[in-house]
């Protein structure tokens, strides 16, 4: 019983001097995995205005609007649930998922992506990126 009371004390002390898990995020970034679904991106030239994406979207995030004499979807990031159904159903491969993580806005309007903004790729990440791997056998903790 006494051992069970005292043991956590030493485990706690031992962990206090281990390497931490924390990634100092805005300064050091984790690399998202290849498949990560951040948001949808449109390739306007490929779009054939077939409306299959707006029909299948379960949350009405896509809406057809007129853009340069062509009907193309407009994207509402404030409605999209990233379920990938539209990308799968698109017959001309015009939609794709991109690795954008940070696209918060101060206003609701900023989350609506008109076709020209919808078709722009995300900004490339400039900060140091790293991948998570199991390391540090000696200290027994993961993350890098």
């Amino acid at each position, binding site marked *: 019983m006494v051992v069970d009371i005292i043991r956590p004390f030493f485990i706690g002390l031992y962990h206090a001097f281990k390497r931490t898990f924390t990634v100092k995020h805005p300064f050091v970034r984790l690399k998202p995995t290849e498949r990560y679904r951040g948001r949808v991106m449109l390739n306007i030239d490929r779009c054939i205005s077939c409306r299959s994406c707006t029909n299948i979207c379960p949350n009405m995030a896509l809406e057809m609007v007129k853009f340069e004499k062509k009907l193309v979807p407009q994207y509402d990031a404030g*409605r999209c649930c990233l379920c990938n159904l539209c990308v799968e159903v698109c017959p001309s491969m015009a939609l794709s998922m991109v690795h954008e993580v940070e696209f918060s806005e101060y206003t609701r309007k900023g989350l609506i992506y008109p076709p020209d903004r919808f078709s722009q790729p995300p900004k490339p990440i400039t900060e140091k990126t790293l991948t998570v791997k199991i390391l540090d056998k000696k200290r027994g903790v993961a*993350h890098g």
Partner: protein
Amino acid sequence: MLEKIGKSLMNIKLLRKIFNWGRAWSLWSVHLETGCCGPEDMARACARFDTERFGTLPFPTLRECDLIFVTGFVTKKMAKRLKLAYEQMPEPKYVIAIGHCSISGGLWWDSYSVVQGVDEILPVDVYVPGCPPRPEAWIQGIRMLQEKIAKEGLKK
């Protein structure tokens, strides 16, 4: 009397800057989960992303909190409590809407019991889209709020 002195003190630019700095770097958040972004709330507070680095700390009593994360959809039953919780918080207070459900109702656009966007009941400061947003996005939301506070003028 005291308030008057406080107000005149706050008119000094440097002091206002210092006070804004204090507000921005000590945003304590409420323990109030409304929807299913809850596990990410845990993840952003825990070791890998650790928002305590920015002074954002989940705090048990809402009498001390400055920040509500609206984590996910808000049902009509919850909306009343959310509003009540918001009213119980002392000024200054901020709201971050997390996830598409709390921004616009999202997946539940035709549901009979979900509020279509939390901005219909509370004033939202930052919208963080995603389903659920990654902890990185939460951190961006917090940092955007900090920038907003730093630019803020006199409050109260």
